[in-house]
């Protein structure tokens, strides 16, 4: 996965993501594609969650999955999550759960609760940073005011790091793939470097949902695991999603 929150020169915040999933879950040699990724693409839906006939939040989901991986609370905040690998992983959380220790929360139920119940960027940030999880994760959060964009690096128990947009330092976007931002990504899976290169080539004066789509369409940021791309603009309350394909030659991940 690749998630980006970027701020343009007028203070508009944009949030975009590629959802990559299905690694090592069956490779279709004939079609040069991942079996599960191809099975997930027809399940992608955009959802408008409504209460009293008003939109509470919107999301891009796989039908049948009640948690959230990609969502927007219009004019309030935008949220995506990327997978984080750690030895202290979800299987430990599941074992604890099975043996009755249930003080943690399933990752996608937390994101769903935040989108449904949090009413500000700061409130969402606190919940995502401090709630005990069953599995590690990266939460990528965008707000509705200048400077409100961050990557929250989570272990099961702790918030390991919060990496914010910082215009004074020239950091007008934050970008997360699936590696801790202070470490080098696995050399076999470096989608971060090409994505950052393309963001810098775009420049802050040209950033928009359109140019973010260009970045997310550039190989290997776009790869055989990419099921969909979502573009969100919090001030407009807009969420657009597109099913993706990666024509050969293309990285398997």
């Amino acid at each position, binding site marked *: 996965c690749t998630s980006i929150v970027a701020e343009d020169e007028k203070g508009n915040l944009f949030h975009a993501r590629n959802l990559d999933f299905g690694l090592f879950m069956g490779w279709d040699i004939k079609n040069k594609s991942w079996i599960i990724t191809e099975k997930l693409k027809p399940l992608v839906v955009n959802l408008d969650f409504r209460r009293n006939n008003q939109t509470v939040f919107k999301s891009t989901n796989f039908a049948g999955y009640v948690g959230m991986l990609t969502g927007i609370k219009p004019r309030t905040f935008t949220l995506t999550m990327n997978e984080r690998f750690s030895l202290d992983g979800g299987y430990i959380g599941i074992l604890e759960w099975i043996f009755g220790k249930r003080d943690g929360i399933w990752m996608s139920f937390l994101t769903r609760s935040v989108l449904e119940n949090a009413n500000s960027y700061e409130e969402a940030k606190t919940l995502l940073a401090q709630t005990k999880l069953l*599995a590690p994760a990266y939460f990528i959060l965008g707000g509705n005011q200048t400077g409100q964009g961050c990557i929250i690096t989570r272990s099961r128990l702790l918030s390991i790091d919060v990496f914010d947009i910082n215009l004074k330092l020239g950091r007008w976007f934050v970008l997360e793939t699936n590696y801790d931002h202070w470490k080098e990504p696995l050399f076999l899976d470096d989608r971060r470097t090409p994505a950052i290169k393309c963001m810098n080539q775009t420049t802050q004066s040209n950033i928009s949902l359109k140019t973010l789509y260009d970045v997310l369409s550039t190989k290997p940021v776009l790869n055989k695991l990419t099921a969909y791309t979502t573009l969100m603009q919090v001030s407009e309350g807009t969420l657009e999603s597109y099913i993706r394909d990666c024509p050969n030659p293309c*990285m398997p991940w």
Partner: protein
Amino acid sequence: SAQFIPPYTEDCRTDMYPPKGPTFKGAVSWYTVDLDLPPGKRWAAVISDKKAELVSMVQAIKDLANALVPSGRLIELVDVSLPLMANTLPQPFGEEIKGISAVSGVPLGEVVLFNIFYEVFTV
């Protein structure tokens, strides 16, 4: 231009929007989830439309599981134990998952597995 050796890095793409061409496989449909409905009924519209695709995706995961454990014990474990897990999940998620199983006809344990896949997959 693109590298023709892994990782096939391309020059930064431009003018890809509006989505078109070989990297665009289709638009995404919109559905409403009415939070005023009882949890068990919220997903009926979505799942009625996507039932065949959901069954097909679950079958692909089962085929994978049976390839790993040919005896079929892994699927049996999912179908026997995970329904119990549904009752331990926080509300409204447990009830919503039961509603999805009822509308789609996919066994409850398999819908639970789909919804906790993130934690399971870290294994």
